[in-house]
């Protein structure tokens, strides 16, 4: 990679040219056996997987179902709040995160990650070239992402940040460590905004343009990598109806969309192909080469078309339904979400109201938590806090390393499609899930970098009934199986002690029902 950027600078593509354009941001339904709700052939087509996932019959409360799906683990305060205001009002609160006071989390993040957050793109690239990106950027950024998710009072917003971060995925290991800016300037400001704003911002993400070789795409030599993924992964989807010719033509449309020497988006008209192009049914006539932003309008017009394309609406609707509701959304469910997309002009909040309807969630089969979700939910529900890392080179980092061990480190997926969201991909990881959830739930007197559970939360009534009751409430919102209840009592049978309470917490977080949400 180091050679690569030097090479890029040497060829003159990296030299500043023209005016810089800064990144712009522009009645509850009773749960029914799932198999019974499906035409046999649809279930069969998914290899019988659906009937095996099953409904969690004990999950009766609509508010708790909403909390599970829209958070990385519900906190006691949030359970109380949702039960108090009710399903629709709680959803509305979460859809407007700016109205939720999250200043404790923000203050903590700003103070703890001051150095990381003060970096400029230029400095990040220098670190990638000459520093220790693993210690200076990759680990702190991963840790900050986890800690934010752990502490935030805006859980639905954080779930959407995770969703878009996978959708517009840039690996943390490449792209000259520019992922930090991709997250901070592209994903987070737009996670509950408009789909078109997200697409536009992603097209101006220097991390994305580096990662998918758009910086190499010029009128002298086409590189179609970004053009393909812009359609296949970000908008119309793999079956969106474009051809290989469309990919090459779109690459020509996008020539000139580049990055300056400071690691910031810059349109370079001298790289743009001003000849005639036809892509995906849209014609761009030949014109005289210009300066400034001449030719950039072609990409902007095309992106607007993509954001409003029926295939894009369907692709994003189905993906959001898989994220929040079920692995096999029906045509009717997709249609409802597409209608919301159309009526709102791609407003993500309006889309989510359709996705997260009470009816959808009451029929939703249990979904397997991905490792990051599992770990953060163990930390959120047990009121754990993270001890800052003192020496990044030597100390165990309890917010980062367990995710690496579970194959889900932040931004670590190697291909541009983002981490899979399929149960069958993650189901084989059970041993590592158990071990790592045990590792992160520790008690006091542990060194720097560890996470520490607040056992006192579970000892307000220091009896077997009291501890089991606290686990039922805090970890499961009150909905816990009789089997687990009995096993926890066995663990505590010899008498309630702090170490046995920790054992009980470990067993509860390793239990099958804690793996799902």
């Amino acid at each position, binding site marked *: 990679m180091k*050679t690569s950027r030097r090479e890029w600078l040497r060829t003159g593509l990296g030299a500043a040219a023209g005016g810089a354009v800064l990144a712009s941001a522009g009645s509850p339904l009773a749960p029914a056996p799932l198999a019974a709700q499906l035409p046999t052939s649809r279930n069969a087509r998914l290899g*019988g997987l659906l009937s095996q996932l099953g409904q969690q019959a004990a999950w009766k409360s609509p508010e708790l179902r909403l909390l599970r799906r829209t958070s990385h683990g519900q906190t006691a305060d949030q359970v109380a709040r949702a039960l108090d205001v009710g399903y629709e009002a709680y959803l509305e609160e979460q859809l407007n995160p700016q109205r939720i006071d999250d200043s404790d989390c923000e203050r903590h993040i700003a103070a703890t990650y001051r150095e990381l957050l003060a970096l400029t793109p230029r400095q990040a690239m220098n670190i990638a070239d000459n520093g220790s990106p693993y210690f200076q950027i990759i680990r702190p950024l991963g840790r900050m992402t986890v800690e934010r998710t752990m502490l935030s009072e805006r859980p639905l917003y954080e779930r959407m940040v995770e969703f878009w971060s996978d959708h517009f995925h840039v690996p943390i290991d490449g792209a000259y460590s520019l992922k930090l800016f991709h997250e901070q300037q592209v994903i987070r400001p737009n996670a509950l905004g408009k789909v078109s704003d997200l697409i536009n911002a992603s097209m101006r993400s220097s991390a994305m343009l580096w990662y998918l070789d758009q910086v190499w795409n010029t009128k002298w030599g086409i590189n179609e990598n970004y053009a393909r993924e812009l359609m296949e992964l970000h908008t119309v989807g793999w079956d969106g109806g474009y051809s*290989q010719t469309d990919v090459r033509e779109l690459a020509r449309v996008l020539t000139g969309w580049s990055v300056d020497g400071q690691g910031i988006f810059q349109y370079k008209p001298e790289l743009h192909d001003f000849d005639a192009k036809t892509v995906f049914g849209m014609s761009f006539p030949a014109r005289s080469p210009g300066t400034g932003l001449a030719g950039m309008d072609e990409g902007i017009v095309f992106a607007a078309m993509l954001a409003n394309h029926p295939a894009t609406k369907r692709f994003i609707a189905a993906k959001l339904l898989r994220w929040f509701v079920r692995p096999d959304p029906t045509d009717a469910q997709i249609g409802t979400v597409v209608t919301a997309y159309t009526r709102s002009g791609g407003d993500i909040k309006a889309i989510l109201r359709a996705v997260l309807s009470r009816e959808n969630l009451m029929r939703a089969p249990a979904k397997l938590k991905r490792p990051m979700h599992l770990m953060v939910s163990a930390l959120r529900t047990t009121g754990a806090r993270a001890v800052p890392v003192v020496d990044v080179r030597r100390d165990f980092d309890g917010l980062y390393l367990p995710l690496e061990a579970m*194959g889900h480190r932040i931004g670590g997926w190697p291909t541009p499609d983002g981490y899979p969201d399929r149960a069958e991909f993650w189901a*084989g990881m059970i041993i590592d899930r158990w071990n790592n959830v045990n590792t992160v739930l520790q008690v006091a007197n542990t060194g720097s970098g560890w996470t520490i559970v607040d056992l006192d939360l579970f000892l307000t009534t220091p009896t077997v009934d009291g501890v089991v009751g606290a686990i039922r409430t805090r970890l499961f919102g009150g909905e816990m199986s009789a089997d687990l209840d009995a096993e926890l009592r066995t663990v505590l049978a010899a008498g309630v002690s702090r170490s046995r309470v920790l054992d009980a917490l470990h067993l509860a977080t390793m239990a*099958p029902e804690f793996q799902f949400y």
Partner: protein
Amino acid sequence: MNHPHDDVACDEYRHVSRRRFLELGSLGAASASLPSWLPSVTFAESENGVRDVLVSVFLRGGADGLTLVAPYADPTYYALRPTLAIPRPDSSSPNRGLALGTFFMLPPTMAPLMAPYLSGELLAVHACGQSATKSRSHFEAERYLEQGKPEDYTIQSGWLARHLATSAPLNASAPMRATSITYGMPRTLAGAPKSLPVPRPASFGVTSSNTAALQRLYNGAWTPMRDSAIDGMATVTLLKKLDFNSYRPANGATYRNDNLGQSLRAIATMIKGDIGLEAAHVDANGWDTHANQGSVGGVLADNMTEFASALGAFWQDIMQGPINYRVTLIATTEFGRNARENGSLGTDHGRASVMFLMGKAIAGGQVITQWPGLEREQLEDGQDLRVTIDMRDVLAEVVQNRLNNRNLSAIFPDYTPRFRGVTK
């Protein structure tokens, strides 16, 4: 989307074949996601020793077949690759290739493959790819190859998984028939019975002391978590018996301390440990060389070094000499790259690439190909090496002749493979 396999077969056929399948499956463990369209199957024979262990190496990203096994005698090669070509074997360049005969050569970084090649146990199949899809998307092409059928987004299981599902276990009591040295299960093995990913075999264990409670809780839990937990705990017990860290490879083989080297070393440990392993998968990442691919000194050269060293060590350890562990290794990639280098000293997504096979019963020491040529009119769409051998031809021959499984229509649906003589 069409769902041809659900729609074409009549209900009765589906019902009968599926029921029969599940009954047979209970010999081992019910598989998590068997395809509903699975035709009636004949179980492969299960006498010990009649099937090879299959080791599957996947070069992710689209490896450049025109560098890995470069056609030095095709003059157009040097015209299309002015800066990226490997110098001819008879040149004086320090970076010159190693001739595999009069037409192809290996790059110098692939030197560790020469010994197995000269022993007749390493085979390259060139201009090989996916004939039934023109997809140049990684995710589609990887998926199509791994599931054994192109252009179908409804299949959830992998071709190797279906081989395992349609053959009785080699060892009926083995808790783990197949493994992947990866975090998470690759599609090649998705839905395989008694299979799980073991990213770090040497430290695979449960830290909790309360495994009895976990056994009880997971016994009633939903599949696939139940299978994962129960088989996982049995596998932990099994792998504990193998001492990965002090494993000593045979014949002086040395595995490099990189991802592929250490993965193949762990697989060798499991094969020699005789734990009933029938298939192992490993990914080698980073072959998507759009820019500055560095065929001689760069990313691609580093990748080739890792690949060739790992395969060379594995051959020495497992295949060299008289001892026969009955192992076949295959190395595939989702597609090749453009014949012509691009404007950024790299290559964009193309079509055909090269496939490697290694084993005592592989017809090695040659490059099997129907070379389509590199002139513009010979290239697909004027830009890519044409696919003249479908990868399923090669895989199916290995499945039938080395894995002793004749259920090719279940493993590679809707395809009639043509054997190319890749096995002895």
